[in-house]
């Protein structure tokens, strides 16, 4: 497993620990996006009720249910942060070939296997960017399904499902 992973990192870079960071970033993105949505959704639902003097909670006739898009703030931030991390990883892997008292780029650029330098510097950051997009879109779809199906129909803003699709396909 380690050898297979190492083929996608420059020689001398600890592939296993980089892979742990890679997975951690994606897990953190997924967790925070999901948690952010559930917190927003719960508080939006609570905001639809008012508590009377006797402690009873009744629906607020003037309340407007929050739009789906407004509930995705945490997810959007995490998408940006994950993207920034994978861009940083790319810079780190490329600059490794120019730092540490050696220009290992000279060796990478004269390898007979064409594309080796590109694969070892670019494939993991690119895979990370793609994976973070998949996490964002999948969780947005699941959140959208919950939003549309678990919300009383009278609260749903018009065109809610179209809004979900628009965000996913944007």
């Amino acid at each position, binding site marked *: 497993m380690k050898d297979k992973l190492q083929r996608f990192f*420059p*020689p*001398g*870079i*600890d592939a296993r620990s980089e892979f742990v960071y890679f997975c951690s970033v994606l897990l953190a993105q997924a967790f925070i996006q999901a948690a952010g949505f559930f917190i927003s959704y719960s508080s939006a639902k609570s905001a639809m009720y008012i508590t009377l003097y006797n402690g009873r909670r009744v629906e607020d006739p003037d309340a407007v249910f929050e739009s789906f898009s407004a509930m995705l703030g945490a997810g959007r931030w995490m998408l940006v942060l994950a993207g920034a991390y994978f861009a940083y990883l790319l810079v780190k892997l490329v600059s*490794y070939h120019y*730092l*540490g*008292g*050696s*220009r*290992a*780029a*000279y*060796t990478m*650029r*004269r*390898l*007979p*296997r*064409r594309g*080796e330098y590109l694969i070892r510097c670019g494939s993991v950051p690119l895979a990370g960017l793609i994976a973070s997009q998949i996490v964002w879109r999948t969780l947005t779809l699941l959140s959208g399904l919950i939003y549309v199906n678990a919300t009383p129909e009278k609260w749903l803003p018009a065109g809610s499902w179209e809004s979900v699709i628009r965000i996913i396909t944007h």
Partner: protein
Amino acid sequence: MLEIKNVTKRYNMKKALDNVSLSIPQGELVGLFGENGAGKTTLMKCILGYTSYTGSITLDGERISHKNIGRIAFATSEHSFFPNLSPNGHAEFYASQFATFNRRRFDVLMDFFELPRGRAAKRLSTGQKNQFEVVLALSQGADYILMDEPFSGNDIFNREDFYKVLLGILGERETVLLSTHLIEEVSSFIGRAVLIHKGQITGDVSMSDLEDSGEGLVDYVKRAWNYRADRIARAIDELGEDS
């Protein structure tokens, strides 16, 4: 045969190489001499395809590409190893990339220079880094080994060890293009001297021809560069007159 034809390289408006032509057949040990900024490193970088140029550089008639680049090795004073990788890790990596990698030569040279094998290359001393750089270049199994000032920072004993090893291990078809300032030191073991001055080849002589002519390599270089020995005496005289 490594053939360099009419190669010109410009950095902005300045010509680093000016219409350089040179043929290097297999099995030669060639010294490339020139002052700082003469174009020695640039010429090597052109051969390796690290920088763009006009003209042509071919290896046995074919342009140098990923198909034949494995036939050329490179050792540079800037170093080209992977700083976090151990020498043993380098051996594994080279073996996976270069089908011709000579593990036995690698082991012999590592033992000869008494280099530690398990430590990250960046933790080696400056002299050890130079030696390791040379070990890698010699072990790649390349036909052409380009060496750009490989001994800067090594003491005379280290360098002498290296010359002896180089002469002892090189195969008949292995060619070394050695760029260095240490003209006198290498004069006894190179077979040919190429001089480069301000981006142009100003001299190209075989050591046997030079020997026949009775001229030493240092004198040949001085002559080719129009070195004026009297300028020091004149400067001292002028200083004497001033005081």
